[in-house]
């Protein structure tokens, strides 16, 4: 014991401490309940945080897929644009129809 503590406790007599069993039980029960509540709170908070994080990840994934989808749609539309189709058709040897003749099926044919 340090000199300071000896100075502080000098002359203090160790007293008898009577333990009341009922009070001890209540105290123990209180500690158990408080521990349980604290544990429950911690579990709840951590689960909420984990759930929030999961939702956030799902949302991020949703937005990522949404962006991919939009980009793909634009890319497909660009590949199938009128000007590109026109150019490709001409490259493949097609030409605008100069004269179109309408034919009627003979009577009785479907």
């Amino acid at each position, binding site marked *: 014991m340090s000199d300071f503590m000896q100075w502080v406790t000098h002359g203090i007599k160790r007293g008898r401490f009577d333990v009341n069993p009922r009070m001890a039980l209540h105290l123990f029960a209180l500690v158990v309940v408080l521990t349980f509540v604290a544990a429950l709170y911690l579990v709840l908070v951590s689960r909420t945080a984990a759930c929030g994080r999961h*939702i956030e990840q799902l949302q991020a994934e949703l937005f990522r897929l949404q962006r991919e989808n939009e980009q793909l749609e*634009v890319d497909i539309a660009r590949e199938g644009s009128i000007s590109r189709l026109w150019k490709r058709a001409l490259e493949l040897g097609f030409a605008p129809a100069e004269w179109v003749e309408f034919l009627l099926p003979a009577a009785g044919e479907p």
Partner: protein
Amino acid sequence: MAEGPRRRLRLLVTLLIGILLVIVAQLAQVQIVNHRFYKEWGEWQSVRTIVMAEPPRGAIRDRDGYLLAGNAVLYSIEAAPSLVDVETAAAALGSLLHVPAAHVETLLDSEASWVSIASPVSKEVGEQIADLRLRGITVLPLWAREYPEGVLASHVIGFCNVEGKCFYGVEGFHDALLRPERVEWEGPVDPASEQIPWAVVPVVLPQPGTDLVLTLDRTVQALVEKELARSVQEYQAEGGTIIVMDPRTFEILALASLPDYDPGRYTDFFSQNPLPFEDPAVSQQYEPGSVFKVLTVAAALDAGLVTPETIYYDSGWIEVGGQMIQNASHAAYGERTVADVLIESLNVGAAWLSTQMGPDVFYRYVRAFGIGRPTGVDLAGEISGQLWLPDDYEHWHDSNLGTNAFGQGVAVTPLQMIAAVATVANDGARLRPRIVAQRVEPDGTVSTLQPVVEAQVISPQTARTLTEVMVRVVEEGVAQARVEGYRVAGKTGTAQIPIPGGYDKEGTIASFVGFGPVPDPQLIILVKLDRPKTSSWASQTAAPAFRRLAARLFVVLGIPPDGVAVAEAAR
């Protein structure tokens, strides 16, 4: 207990109580006295407005679902300098962004809590940077409006700038519908401004914008643009407009004007004077000239004043309100019928009809045809045109009654003019022209927009009578507009261009409005060419353009020639 130890114990207890009181006082100061200050300070440090990633703007499609305006992905690279390993980040970012690492280092060497490194960057580069997972570097997705068809239908679509503000056409008119929902809330963030998921974040996701399906047919639009470009070049015009509508529903199938622009590269066109962004079809007016005679004759027929066979005497001039009105040829035609007013495009006959009607009747019909007011089409920037009425003492003059009858002294937009003539093709019922056919909500709900009848301007009988006269205009008057195999009705207009103090002697505006096949018109076309140089006459410029385009569109839209149609009906 001896007095000494007791005193020391008392002293110790007093000391402890004193310390406790100081702590309690400090706590009280923090928690109670300065509660608001510390609360706000804490929130300032950790609570931010968190904006949920923005969903895409609504798409614009043609009537067959082809994408005309969509969304591409870009990224913005941002940083919290206090958290960044400057050397590593500068080397990596410099290499991917193709800028010197020293430049990035300069940006990161900042006292600011947040700096922008580069924006916008391409999707590929943005994703490569995101994959590096650099501490303190944030890669934010951005949307960029994309127009996969390039210049096609640029005036109809309009454009959006880099800030997401949209102008002109459908983009401008329906901006509120197309714009996505924005969801934001106050929440805790970490030092890199990343959200801390202490609480469950809002699960209501922001909704994308509403998709719009247009009445436009991209194939028809492409053919119209090709014909317009050809006509402008062939007739050496300064510009022009072609509109194609279905007269049964007033749906706009194609609308093209030159000069045009690429909405995806609109900044390239800022150097042009005038800017090409305004749609001449709805935002610019012109004096229509003789096409307007269709409305004058319609009014006279419907008012019961005349029939197509009614004879009048054309002396070559008529005086209205003190102004001498002559035919375009300055010739006198003698006895002529009302039908001849259209077939031979006689100004004197038209002025005679309007004076016979009087201003009340004449202007009542002109207003009913939609002249002098916006058509209500869902395109941004539509103007009213210019029609002075007799009660406007400042502008209207008695002579207006005569000149307005043949389309002078009155200004219309191309869309007003085609809508007025489409009224004749549609048995006298004027509908509201429209460009949007359907709205597709984010949840997939489709609402189909129905035609809106504005007015029954003339009786169906008058409309059919007038249509037959207009067929004669093409068959007997303007051979250049005849379409082989189809009966078409139409009218030319060669209009002078008003300038301060009179009319320009140099140029004209040549136009032709025609529809067919008669008697069941499925197509109406307006061709307008500005200041053609090869000929000032519409019959030599706008009419042949109409013929070429109508012949092509009848085939593309599967409208059989008259002979086949009659045979089909007989089966």
